[in-house]
């Protein structure tokens, strides 16, 4: 028994993403954002994308490249305060923005990844967050019905990967990456380091390769991944 090899090229992996696709992007701020995959998505240029990411990065990086290149129709996110372009495009109606509380965003994505349809929570009850969500009575309490959030593609940044797609993440770069990897029809990973099968101890694997479709090794790590000097 040996495990399947899922290594592929970045060009071919990203070429599957067509106009109108929904694309999840890992990351919370810089850590865990798949900048090289996003850069290739900008190069290949599919348009009218629905982008799902915790935040919109900052000016001149990541999601901002897609926005500036006019590829984004819709953004599902929890916070875009650090990206003036996103704020402007939202205010001008150039992009549609759906704000989701951060933990609900995480859980809607995980719910899709766990093959479920939705969940019930009281988060946001009695606030504007409630708008448009069916109320559900359970055990004498009231909850809101939240729907699973799926995507056609997930672009994921990992610290280490093996050829089967077993992944490990560094520090706070984990964030939404494993959840999104579970929730997309096709999941593409960029890995800082490829390691041989078995080099990640079975107990230390953060996400099983069963969720992964293509693994791309990064041969360079552009400066955008580095510490931001403010």
């Amino acid at each position, binding site marked *: *028994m040996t495990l399947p090899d899922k290594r592929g090229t970045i060009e071919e992996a990203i070429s599957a993403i067509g106009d109108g696709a929904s694309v999840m992007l890992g990351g919370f701020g810089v850590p865990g954002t798949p900048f090289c995959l996003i850069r290739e998505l900008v190069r290949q240029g599919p348009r009218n994308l629905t982008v799902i990411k915790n935040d919109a990065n900052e000016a001149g990086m990541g999601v901002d490249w897609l926005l500036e290149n006019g590829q984004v129709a819709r953004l599902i996110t929890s916070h875009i305060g650090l990206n003036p372009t996103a704020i402007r495009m939202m205010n001008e109606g150039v992009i549609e923005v759906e704000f989701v509380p951060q933990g609900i965003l995480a859980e809607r994505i995980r719910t899709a990844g*766990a093959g479920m349809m939705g969940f019930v929570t009281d988060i946001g009850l009695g606030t504007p967050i409630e708008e448009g969500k069916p109320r559900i009575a359970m055990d004498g309490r009231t909850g809101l019905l939240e729907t699973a959030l799926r995507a056609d593609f997930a672009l994921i940044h990992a610290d280490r990967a093996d050829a*089967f797609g*077993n992944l490990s993440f560094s520090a706070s770069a984990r964030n939404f990456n494993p959840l999104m990897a*579970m*929730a997309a029809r096709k999941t593409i990973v960029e890995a800082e380091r490829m390691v041989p099968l078995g080099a990640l101890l079975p107990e230390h694997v953060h996400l099983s390769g*069963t969720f992964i479709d293509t693994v791309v090794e990064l041969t360079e790590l552009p400066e955008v991944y580095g510490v931001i000097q403010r």
Partner: protein
Amino acid sequence: MSSNAKERMLKRAAADIAPGMTVNLGIGLPTEVLQHVEPGLPVCLHSENGIAGVGPVLSPDKADRNLIDAGGAYVSAIPGTAFFDSAVSFAIVRSGRLDLSLLGAFEVAANGDLANWKIPGKFSPGMGGAIELAQKARRVGVIMMHTDRRGNPKILDRCTLPLTARGHVNRIYTDMAVFDITADGLQLREIALGTDLTELRAATGAPFHVPDQDLPRF
């Protein structure tokens, strides 16, 4: 049934495990299919207690006390094995990451219904992971003896026992034949060496289509 016929059934089921697949082999006969999978085949075996990349079974003296499969056998890790909790394990199942689930059965119906977890009044140990495995794998294969110990058919027009899943079985492997379950009903695909159609019809509790061309033998 000769042990020979059983071996050929297991081998036939193993032949449907293709490179690249993630596969769950249920307790009992499905687990035995493993012995007939080509050793170098790139395939990921899933065990619902939290393993992807299940390796060979070990003898008790070589076993790791903390590493069993869902059937309780002491198994091993291979290069690339990963462990996870039970919620992640069933996330793999429910989100459709299992390319194939092979299950045993008490009864299978011509419409794809499966009953394999409960015989009211006689056997009700609980369903374990069977419901999800039967409902959510991309393909579901049943592997079983064609008839029960008394010679009664286990392939029926409609199941009589409580269902595990409704309409999800794609293929049935028995010691007598291979059937596909199609929109059109039960379709005979292959017939075992030494079995003839008359015998097969008598042992099967549902009508089935027989192809015009020669039937492959296994």
